């Protein structure tokens, strides 16, 4: 891997985003729907204030952005494998590692932009975030996103020419990860087996870390577990992704 190659791959990936920034905002539709239609239900259900509910819910929505946006990013690569431009980059003198890492790092840009937009939208409704906590929270999300994005690319590379299989695997992983993260509903009342699974779900720890960080509780043990989980996803994702890219033809 060379830094130049990685930079060149990343800037290429970012060009369509820079040309059409609205695309980044448009893909916020789904989290906005959850924010607008699910948060009021939570308020009604728990009896807590809107501000308190948002303090609990918004960090989860930020993780949701990563889960859905970055988790699906492999489909872009799969499309480029199908149409031919991936092959072109394989013949260019770029290291395979850079081809993967450059793409994965690009994911940080939409994650940060989208998170800030969600925070800005929730702000007038009483949501408040600790600014240092938000900054650290974005770093944790970025690491988690780079790892998840790499896994998504690896899945795309492994399911070459079988688009349906990419989506089948992706969907059957994402929803259990989502529900078992306590992102939408608290897992307090979950049966014991669910709690057990959730306790080893890295997404759960990232959500809890984001809640602590944005709430200003920077020294909470959940932060440590979240950082560890995000780092682990990042390391595993990059390792698996780079291996898949090296085998790509």
């Amino acid at each position: 891997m060379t830094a130049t190659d990685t930079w060149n791959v990343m800037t290429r990936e970012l060009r369509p985003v820079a040309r059409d920034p609205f695309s980044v905002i448009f893909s916020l539709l789904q989290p906005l729907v959850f924010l607008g239609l699910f948060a009021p239900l939570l308020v009604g259900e728990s009896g807590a204030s809107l501000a308190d509910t948002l303090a609990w819910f918004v960090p989860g929505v930020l993780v949701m952005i990563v889960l859905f946006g970055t988790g699906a990013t492999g489909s872009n690569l799969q499309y480029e494998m199908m149409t031919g431009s991936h092959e072109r980059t394989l013949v260019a003198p770029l290291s395979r590692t850079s081809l993967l890492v450059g793409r994965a790092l690009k994911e940080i840009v939409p994650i940060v932009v989208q998170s800030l937009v969600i925070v800005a939208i929730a702000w007038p409704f009483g949501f408040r975030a600790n600014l240092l906590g938000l900054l650290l929270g974005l770093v944790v999300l970025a690491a988690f996103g780079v790892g998840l994005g790499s896994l998504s690319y690896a899945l795309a590379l492994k399911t070459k020419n079988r688009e349906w299989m990419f989506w089948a695997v992706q969907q059957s992983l994402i929803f259990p990860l989502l529900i078992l993260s306590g992102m939408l509903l608290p897992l307090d009342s979950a049966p014991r087996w669910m709690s057990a699974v959730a306790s080893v779900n890295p997404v759960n720890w990232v959500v809890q870390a984001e809640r602590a960080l944005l709430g200003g509780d920077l020294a909470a043990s959940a932060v440590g577990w979240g950082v560890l989980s995000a780092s682990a996803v990042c390391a595993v994702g990059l390792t698996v992704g780079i291996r898949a890219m090296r085998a790509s033809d």
Partner: protein
Amino acid sequence: MDAPIIEAEGLTKRFTSRKATVEAVTDLTFSVAQGELVAFLGPNGAGKSTTLRMLTTLIAPTSGRASVVGRDIAREAAAVRARIGYVGQLTSGSFAQRVRDELISQGAFYGMAKAAAAARADALVESLGLSGFATRTVQQLSGGQKRRLDIALGLMHAPPLLFLDEPSTGLDPQSRANLWEHILDLRREHGTTVFLTTHYLEEADRYAERVMVMDQGRVIADDTAAHLKEHLAGDAVTLGLDSPGSADRASSLVAEVTGREVRRVDATTVAVHVADGATLLPTLLRRLDAAGVAVVSATGVPPTLDDVFLALTGRTLREANLSTADAQPDTDPVAASATAEGGDR
């Protein structure tokens, strides 16, 4: 004389998919000199693309070796990649990218400075007739425009050797002619070596100086199109006679004059393949006339590369394309992904 720009020795590729092993390319040995324009001709599944993918370092050969622009494809893959241009069968540009952006990215991939890449991108956009489309996304281009962008991307870093895999497949005749003009211009101006695959006979015939005919993983002929046609097929001279009796007499007389085997097409028609039909035909007619054999029709048709292919394999290229369309190792996703192991560079 300079060293050959491509040197392949015993290049072989076997794909294993499930339990079947397919040998896509068998023991290929050849060399290409700098500045040559070589066409790899053969039916689908003949092993043309597999060979190209080995030479461009996309897949590793099962055995054998090759050097491309002086570098070994296995040990110095990165160096090979830096020195070649490659236009694959599909679209090189990413559909979401703008034309000019994609060219500039490509320049960066090959280590070009920003200003140089921008200038080169503009020059290529201009010369490949893409002015006015520079800020369009690839998705918005027509088939011919996409293909011209593919060529532009392959030329961005001015490689001394350009590989083109089926460059004109799917293009209308006008776009195809236009594409060829660009390829030929390129050679004239920069002396670029061009190595391409095609299953269009006319194309190999008309543009390539050297044709390598490939069938079932092997190169079965390698010469100029003119020589191949002259030596392997020859002009087809066909004579129509007024009766079966005349045809019998014509048969023996034509055999005597040409020294070639004469075919009886039907009761009153005979045909022979000869090297120079145009000058032979008047002689034949005079001799037959003198012998009192009544000729009612006479044609002399120059051979096509299809005749060459027929002479070499016993089947026409069209038949070969049909029979192998279902079993094409080049594009079998299972085969292609199951076997390749690449390094980081």
